């Protein structure tokens, strides 16, 4: 287990190192996040709808789109010069490879979210300081689930036609449970409702994470082995 995690970290480190040497993808994703937030600002009537009512949807739609952009990158990188074949013949278990990709994607999405959240607070003037810790917790809980499924699917779609379009089409139905849960919890956090109202949603998010991380780990070998 520990050995596998160590090897996973090697894969993740390699991906992140590549990313920070070029910085193209991460910068694009961050700029994309800022742009989507700006678009949202012009896509609503501030006199008719109070920001607080719209805020959770804005936050989560932005994060979802940004994450989708990031996920396409994970395996597309390995197609060049048949790098994936190299990884597959190396003495690296499939589990470590998947976890490595998952960790790299999670860190990538975390960075985008870490930039997105302050921008969101700045643009929409939503008071989050009093609920910052629980909010970060919810973001983490929802992110793990959909990045796990997204990482699995991105390993499949890179070898299909129209990969960029295929990933959102396959992944969006899978984003519904975490998205609905995250939006509901965020809305209640921002409006200062008691924690007991969100227990059901938190359980759903937690169950989704456990089920889909396990399932994706088990299914991943079938997406890369002949």
């Amino acid at each position, binding site marked *: 287990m520990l050995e596998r995690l160590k090897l996973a970290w090697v894969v993740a480190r390699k991906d992140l190192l590549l990313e920070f040497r070029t910085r193209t993808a991460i910068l694009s994703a961050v700029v994309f996040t800022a742009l989507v937030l700006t678009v949202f600002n012009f896509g609503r009537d501030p006199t008719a709808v109070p920001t607080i009512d719209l805020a959770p949807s804005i936050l989560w739609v932005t994060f979802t789109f940004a994450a989708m952009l990031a996920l396409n990158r994970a395996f597309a990188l390995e197609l060049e010069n048949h790098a994936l074949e190299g990884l597959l013949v190396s003495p690296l278990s499939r589990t470590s490879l998947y976890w490595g990709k998952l960790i790299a994607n999670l860190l990538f999405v975390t960075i985008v979210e870490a930039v997105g959240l302050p921008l969101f607070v700045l643009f929409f003037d939503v008071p989050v300081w009093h609920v910052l810790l629980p909010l970060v917790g919810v973001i983490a809980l929802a992110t793990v689930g959909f990045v796990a*499924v997204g990482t*699995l*699917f991105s390993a*499949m*779609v890179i*070898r*299909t*036609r*129209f990969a960029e379009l*295929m990933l959102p*089409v*396959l992944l*969006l*139905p*899978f984003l*519904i*449970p975490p998205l*609905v*849960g995250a939006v*509901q919890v965020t809305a209640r956090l921002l409006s200062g409702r008691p924690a007991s109202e969100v227990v*059901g*949603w938190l359980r*759903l998010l937690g*169950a*989704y994470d456990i*089920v*889909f991380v396990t*399932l*994706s780990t088990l*299914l991943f070998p*079938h*997406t890369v082995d*002949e």
Partner: protein
Amino acid sequence: MTLAQKGRWTTLVGLVLLAAVYVRALAFTPIERTQGPAQKIYYIHVPAAIWTETAMILVGVASIFFLFLKDARLDSFAEASAEVGTAFATIVLTTGPIWGKPIWGTWWTWDARLTSTLFLFFLYIGYLLLRGAVADPGARARYAAVLGICGMVLVPFIHFSVYLFRTLHPMPIILKPSAPALPGSMLATWGVSFAVFTVLYVGFVMQRYALARARQEVPHA
């Protein structure tokens, strides 16, 4: 008789029986008191909905066995079941709004049950699109199986997440823990209709399965 022909006959029998179900539903089953004649659509809507969900579960189960046994027949069955499921989901999503307009006063509402059926429909479309986008037959079968299993696991999650929402949709009156709350004659009509939809599912799947098998035997087709 080939499998495709058997499938065609089964479907034909199913369609004739479906017409018979409607004769029974319109002429020999009482009109529901509050909903009036609009309730008659129930006899198509609910059996189709049950088979839409069952077809997805069967896709998932066939996919699990495919990944273990690597038997191309299981993959063909999953493909056939997914296509038939898509057709049934279309029936559910068409008959639903037709009933919704007179009863709820709106064609569509973002109600829990409607939303989850819509996403099931999208899941089916995604599954079929993925099959169409992979050129290599071996990879196509494996990818489809991975998506099929994930899809099957997703269905209860969508169900739970929408159940936590409030719902406008009538609560189940047949598939619920206590006894069915439908009057006898209506329940009988429904039962016959459900049996007919089962025949239709089997007939459709037999035809699509035969076609998928034929495609596997002709390379590069």
